[in-house]
């Protein structure tokens, strides 16, 4: 497993190891483990990583914040850390102070648009909003403005992701925001979508690291036909392919995170980084989950085993902030528009 490369990521790693380990979660079907975990995350300031200190946040760099998302992916647990970080980031762009508690963002898909009415209220519907039912606030981008909305003021139809996490439809019926601000240039629905896609890419890559780790470990424990299954060449080759997919996901996601850490305006090259990360990580999730389950045999398919925490989330995260099909169409159109002779210069631009 990748070692955390900074103190912020180390803190996150420690909190997840202490409060969201496999035993704790498996022995507590009620979900009561989530409250102390969130409390510890909050006390460490991680949910507001991207909020500057003068706005009561942690003032962590973009890069360190991205590494926290990798750690969150490796933990594969059901708390809105990524969503609260994204919300804090968005609110900060509008210089709106982040409130305490869990947050999420809207819209979270390419087809939903929210409207800022002349009277300052917000209308519209946003689907598949992660953790909307659990969040206290929603950070919204609508019509060139950023707004902070009390989740209680919205009608929320509960839904569940593939992994069983809240993925809800939020109806904004002339909702009056707690605060509104004009979005600066370059911060719009597309920018939020790209940031969300990047966050999910990092989480998927992290989940793949865990899938690889527990699959390798299990292959060294399980004996079949009088041998550890890790000694079978076919199993070794499957795990080598899983390592390849994990590497591709890590490379694509960390490259995009690095590109976004420099805060440049979103140009074609930056778009390529984020779109490619979401596409490639999603493809890796599909191939990786299949291999991890194959190595684990039937045990991996049970609720008792922790494998589902990573496989189902990695697969579910493919759908948030634009699926790989969506980003592939967008990227393909961009490439076509630039023309054949501009493809290589785009790929080689960094």
């Amino acid at each position, binding site marked *: 497993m990748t070692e955390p490369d900074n103190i912020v990521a180390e803190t996150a790693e420690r909190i997840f190891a202490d409060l969201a380990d496999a035993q704790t979660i498996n022995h507590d079907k009620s979900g009561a483990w989530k409250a102390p975990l969130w409390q510890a995350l909050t006390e460490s300031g991680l949910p507001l990583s991207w909020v500057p200190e003068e706005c009561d946040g942690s003032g962590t760099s973009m890069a360190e914040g991205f590494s926290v998302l990798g750690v969150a992916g490796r933990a594969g647990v059901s708390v809105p850390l990524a969503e609260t970080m994204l919300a804090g980031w968005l609110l900060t762009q509008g210089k709106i102070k982040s409130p305490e508690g869990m947050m999420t963002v809207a819209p979270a898909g390419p087809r939903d648009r929210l409207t800022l009415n002349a009277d300052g209220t917000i209308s519209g519907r946003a689907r598949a909003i992660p953790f909307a039912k659990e969040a206290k606030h929603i950070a919204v981008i609508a019509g060139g403005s950023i707004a902070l909305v009390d989740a209680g003021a919205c009608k929320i139809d509960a839904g569940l992701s593939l992994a069983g996490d809240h993925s809800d439809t939020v109806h904004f019926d002339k909702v009056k925001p707690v605060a509104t601000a004009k979005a600066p240039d370059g911060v719009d629905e597309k920018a939020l979508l790209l940031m969300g896609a990047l966050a999910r890419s990092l989480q998927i890559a992290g989940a793949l*690291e865990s899938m690889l780790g527990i699959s390798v470990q299990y292959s060294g424990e399980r004996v079949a036909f009088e041998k550890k299954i890790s000694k079978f060449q076919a199993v070794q080759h499957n795990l080598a392919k899983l*390592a390849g997919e994990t*590497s591709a996901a890590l490379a694509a996601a960390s490259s995009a995170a690095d590109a976004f850490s420099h805060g440049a305006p979103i140009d074609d090259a930056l778009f390529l980084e984020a779109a490619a990360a979401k596409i490639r990580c999603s493809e890796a999730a599909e191939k990786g989950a299949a291999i991890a389950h194959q190595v684990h045999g039937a045990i991996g398919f049970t609720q008792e085993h922790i494998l589902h925490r990573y496989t189902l989330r990695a697969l579910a995260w493919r759908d948030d902030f634009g699926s790989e099909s969506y980003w592939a169409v967008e990227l393909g159109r961009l*490439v076509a528009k630039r023309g054949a002779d501009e493809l290589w210069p785009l*790929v080689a631009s960094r």
Partner: protein
Amino acid sequence: MTAALRFDPIRLPPECEQLRKEVRAFLADEIAAGTFDPHRPVQEDADNREFSRRVGEKGWLGMTWPKKYGGHERSFLERYVVTEEMRVANAPVRRFFVADRQSGPVLLKYAPEHIKMDILPRICRGEICFSIGMSEPNSGSDLFAAKTKATKTDGGFLINGSKIWTTSAHIADYMIAIFRTSPPTKENRRHGLTQFLVNMKAPGIKVNPIDQITGQQEFNEVVFTDAFIPDDHVLGEIDGAWKQATSELAYERSGPERFLETYYTLTELVRAIGSDPDTRSAEGIGRLVAQLHTMRRMSVSVAGMLQAGKEPVVEASIVKDIGTVWEQQLPHRVRDLAAFVDESASNHATLEEMLDFAIKTAPKLTIQGGTTEVLRGIIARGLGLR
């Protein structure tokens, strides 16, 4: 738990961008002068002496080597840029590529000083061509199975046996080869192989070309009959070549040439599809570009590790494994998408011709430089499974 897989997001430094411009300008001039056609990967003239010399004049051979051997003491990342641009343009690199990538670094590490002083500057000037003698009939990726013998004689060794699948042996001036100097021991199968510098013009060496299904001729069988190699042409340790040969392969495995060999089909597909693609075509192109970008970022990352003096054997094997599987699948995916291209597209004939060639090329891509199965074994070892 498992080995840490690291693919740090290395960026090419600014000097690389300047260099990239220079390489592109040079290649544009060469194309304009008719040296090669970038839209025609089926190069009858892939072996081009004059082009090789001009690349040498530009200072793009032996880029990372010490100046006293004619090198330029530049970075691996700068060399990486030159390789990328040459590959993407389908430039005729055959004469110098192996020497620059692999043979030179081996000589630098293991050859005696007078040989380095003699040969390395000539590689840097683009004057000489190298081939690599590893595979033998019935050995291939299984280096331990190599049988061709080097028998000690006065002042050197006599070679008897044959090598096969040796790319460019028919045009090569030298070969770096491994031969058996003693049998493997019970304790160590890896024992008994020695690496040699072979002058291909020496008596007792016969090169038999092997035609490929693409219609090209790159591979050869090389037969040695009492061919003499002097003592000072031994590279490294007698009987200890196994480790040398495998570390050499890290250079062969992760470079841009390991995912760009069929790249031209993607460019031509984008051209044929035009600026306003339907949804299916757009999605197909988008996925392929995302995969290409990811491969490249992985490959740059490994180049960065080589630059930092690390030996990223597992990472390089991963890049080679998924890179060659990707470049093998690419022409087939392009074919899927090309099925819906309007046949009146101005480049349709070129696309068809390129696809025909790429699909014929594809089967070898996962074999050269270590088969997929061997690479997955190395990765599995890195994961602690063996």
